[in-house]
């Protein structure tokens, strides 16, 4: 499993959180329990199985919702 920390542009509405959370959770291979959208620091933390889904897939899913990904970090856990 890998743990990703994704920095987004500043989030402005609390409902964005729910959108992003549901969006990332719907990806196959992402551990649903682990998805955390931090509104105040505009970060997403999630654990994922890198054999089923890549960090690029996760970034794209957020991007498609209309939120820009600034940078992301992946760490093996």
């Amino acid at each position, binding site marked *: 499993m890998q743990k990703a920390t994704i920095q987004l542009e500043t989030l402005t*509405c*609390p*409902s964005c959180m*729910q*959108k992003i959370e549901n969006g990332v959770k719907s990806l196959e291979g992402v551990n649903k329990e682990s998805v955390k959208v*931090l509104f105040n*620091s505009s970060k997403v933390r999630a654990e994922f199985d890198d054999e089923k889904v890549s960090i690029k897939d996760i970034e794209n899913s957020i991007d498609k919702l*209309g939120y820009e990904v600034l940078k992301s*970090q992946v760490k093996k856990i």
Partner: protein
Amino acid sequence: MQKFILGKKNHITIVSAILIIIAYVSKLGFKNEPIAIWSLIIASVLGVIPIAIQAYQALKVKVVSIDVLVTIAVIGAFIIKNYEESAIVTFLFLFGAYLEQRTLNKTHSAIKELTEMAPEVALKQLKNGEFEEVEIEEVDVGDILLVKTGAKIPVDGTVLTGEGHINEASITGEAVPVSKKKDSGVYAGTILKNGILQITADRVGEDTTFGKIIELVEEAQDSKSEAERFIDRFSKYYTPAVLGLSFIVGLISRDIELAITILVLGCPGALVIGVPVSNVAGIGNGARHSVLLKGSEVISDFSRLDTMVFDKTGTLTIGNPKVADKEIYADNVDEVLAYLSSVEKESDHPLAKAVVEYIGDTKSYTVEKTVVVKGRGIVAHVEGHKVAVGNVALMEQENVLLSEKVRGDIARFEENGNSLVLTSVDGELKALIGIRDQIRPGVKEDLQQLKKLGVKNLVVLSGDNQGTVDLVARELGLTEAHGHMLPEDKSAYIKALQERGQIVAFVGDGVNDSPSLALAQIGIAMGSGTDVAIETSDVVLMNSDFSRLPHALGLTKATANNMLQNIIIAVGVVLVLLASVFFSEWMNMSIGMLVHEASILAVILNAMRLLRYKL
């Protein structure tokens, strides 16, 4: 395309404002209805596009957001040809969102200050031995890094070569620079004031102490209290319920205007944002004042505190025993002290260390035939004399005669809360030394402030004897004092308080008292930014600064009050708006949107007051 439009949201807001002004000027000034109407139509269509996109995205992930309500309302207004309402509502909604973002950024400023202290680059040694500047992400554990004067330490590491002074304020809160040389530990985010260091990276990125502090604060700001979770659940069903209500009202009354007005008025904006924004501002204020609060649950518990329980050593006292009183019963004072110091150097008992430190530089004698008597002291031979150093029991064992005067001195020393060290040379008592732990300066005033802030009981628990603990309690004005307590006794005591329905905070040094820290509703660690302290407690006072405690308590009280005010504002506004739509003539969509946006700004501005909170 969607992203392009959303990115231009602020431009759209300005354009629709201009169009609305044109509409009013041409309608009132030139009596030109067609231009006015077309301006409003363009403003409405332009303004609703970004809102509709957001609404669509929300619906795609099965969320009925405010955007959905507003989009339906605007489309409804458009259908009944009320272009004035549709234009003004979209404009107010966009403008409100802009202001919201601006003010929200302010509440994040405290955290920004913290994260901006995070190092971004490092000078890393390459294979050829030269140093090159690289991004912080490229540094791995074991890399050798060069830090020049004025630069930030990029990782947690160990000094390999070089010397210098480091300002560790970002970790410990202490502004006085600390000297570092080979094998000293250094922390990411601290600043090298002078000198040049080469360090080996031990921990990088989020694993560093600084990284952990940031992660902790970030997660704390997004943590949810019971009240917030309730509001979350509430708003999840609230928005669909508003949608349903307006639909039913529309069907029954056949009044589309009324139905869409309900949609706008029912927006839960201030309710959703009111509580989290207070939380963020409160935690931000704490981070700026060396108080780490781990989330909103802690704030809520802390603000309703009944009893505060303190560990004695290292918390109320400095935790470093020092010689406080002494009596010498000999003429050759220097020689007696030299004997004493030489013997005590054989021991690593805390009292022996205090004695050696107190006597300082003196002649050093060779000590022979050292015998440690457990629980009593040391007997040894120095320069052919038999020297015994220890407590009263050791003197009795060695048949040392204690005169009337000495017995009086012993009683006086004990009354002052001293631990005793007696010294005899060849069976004759030569010196009596009293050692005690010093109370932290300023603690008394801080405790009085805590009482003033409404803490009912201040209790000290300690493993020391009852006499010493009572003395500390009397000196500091504590309400209760219990000695002879093992760690498990302390946690049992806290449990008993909790069973009586009290909210208990435990203040300890985070290492040996972790059961009590974990058990108390609020565990407060006097940490110097150590891992254990950060992980086991609910509140961390950086740099073991006791004087932050009243600030922490005052801040949580202010934050809890602020949340309550915001809930009252938010709920009050929604109730008044919904009531007025049924019972008054003047209420319409535009006024509703204006009041709604104003209430959002009101709760944000109210929360921002917390950023400036000071005791």
